[in-house]
């Protein structure tokens, strides 16, 4: 009997969708774990450099590298880190909202803005809304290499060196927990050295070859490692957001299937009841 054939096919199709979302959820969960490991692995490097910089700030107060000096802001640079793929809830939308917020702030102060995008979504977004995009990197995959970022970061560092931009920010999603990802705007340049006391006596490094060269190398690597960390952290955020979004989708599909099944059974019952009453009334007529 053809009762509720449409409903049957609908249930099938929702079930198929549910299978897909459930698979995506599981894939995202395992990728998230790996991304978290990578996040932890990249931390010591930045920590070590930060230590060295702290020592430097103490040991060498008379020498000031341009990366450590504040200057008047006429133009700022933004590195916007997004995911390459969608289907991860409101992750990128929230990030862009935060980003636009701080872009606007600079805009009202009539400061010009250069943007550098990492990840396909950011590139697409600024293509739509406009913006002075000077460099781009995308399709970094789940395990980005720092090499893929060097070029992009260098464009911004060069701009800073030549005085084109006076400040550099990075925008990314901070991984707080599986459920919470927090869009962050962080200042990269000039580097904000923490002025921590606690060194009893003055000492300085020996530099080979020269202080300036060594410092430039060191600070460049520091900025690169911070951007790398932002990218890795954003990937962890992306995967956890996707996991949560896909879980919600699977659950919704389950609810939908239940509702459809109920409707189907009701229709079937109604059809049977009607048939019986037809038969009964037919028999009574005879």
């Amino acid at each position, binding site marked *: 009997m053809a009762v509720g054939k449409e409903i049957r096919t609908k249930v099938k199709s929702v079930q198929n969708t549910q299978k897909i979302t459930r698979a995506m959820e599981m894939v995202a969960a395992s990728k998230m774990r790996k991304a978290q490991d990578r996040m932890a*692995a990249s931390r010591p*490097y930045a920590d070590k450099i930060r230590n060295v910089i702290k020592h430097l700030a103490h*040991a060498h107060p008379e020498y000031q590298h341009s990366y450590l000096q504040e200057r008047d802001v006429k133009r700022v640079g933004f590195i916007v880190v997004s995911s390459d793929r969608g*289907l991860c809830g409101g992750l990128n939308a929230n990030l862009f909202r935060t980003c636009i917020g701080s872009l606007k702030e600079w805009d009202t102060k009539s400061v010009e803005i250069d943007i550098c995008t990492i990840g396909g*979504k950011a590139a697409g977004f600024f293509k739509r809304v406009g913006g002075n995009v000077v460099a781009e990197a995308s399709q970094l995959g789940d395990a980005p*290499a720092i090499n893929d970022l060097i*070029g992009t970061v260098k464009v911004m560092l060069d701009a800073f060196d030549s005085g084109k931009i006076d400040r550099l920010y990075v925008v990314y999603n901070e991984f707080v927990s599986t459920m919470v990802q927090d869009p962050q705007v962080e200042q990269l340049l000039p580097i904000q050295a923490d002025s921590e006391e606690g060194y009893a006596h003055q000492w300085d490094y*020996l530099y080979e070859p020269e202080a300036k060269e060594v410092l430039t190398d060191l600070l460049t690597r520091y900025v*690169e490692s911070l951007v*790398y960390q932002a990218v890795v952290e954003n990937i962890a955020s992306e995967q956890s957001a996707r996991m949560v979004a896909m879980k919600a989708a699977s659950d919704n599909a389950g609810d939908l299937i239940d509702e459809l099944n109920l409707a189907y059974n009701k229709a079937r019952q109604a059809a049977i009841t009607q048939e019986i009453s037809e038969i009964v009334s037919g028999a009574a007529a005879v």
Partner: protein
Amino acid sequence: MAMTMHVDVVSAEEAIFSGPAKMLFAPGVMGDLGIMPRHAPLLTRIKPGEVRILTPDDEEQFYYVSGGMLEIQPEAVTILADTAIRAKDIDEAAALEAKERAEKALADRSGEIDYATTEAELAEALAQLQAIQRLKKKLGR
């Protein structure tokens, strides 16, 4: 007991070595360095090459680094290893590439109807479907 110092070898992508050592050899840009505990503070660049660490139980450990920075303090040595060989012109090329990508992306606004729009459309279609289903069900009752 022989004097030891703490050695850390880290790259931006992972921590490679961490532990005590009696001596360490590294290829500095100005020449190879052999470092023992209580060395004067030193900051230098290192060339691509081999880092050799002599652990307290007289074992030697070898690591290849493709350049990086070396920081020495009396009690601790840190090697900030690069993950790839760095040279000015290679970096320059990478920077140019990044710029080109941005320009290209701006140039073909229409090209490769992006994944994002298609996805949004798909989501919309799904939402519509759902709404239709709800409506059907209500009418069916």
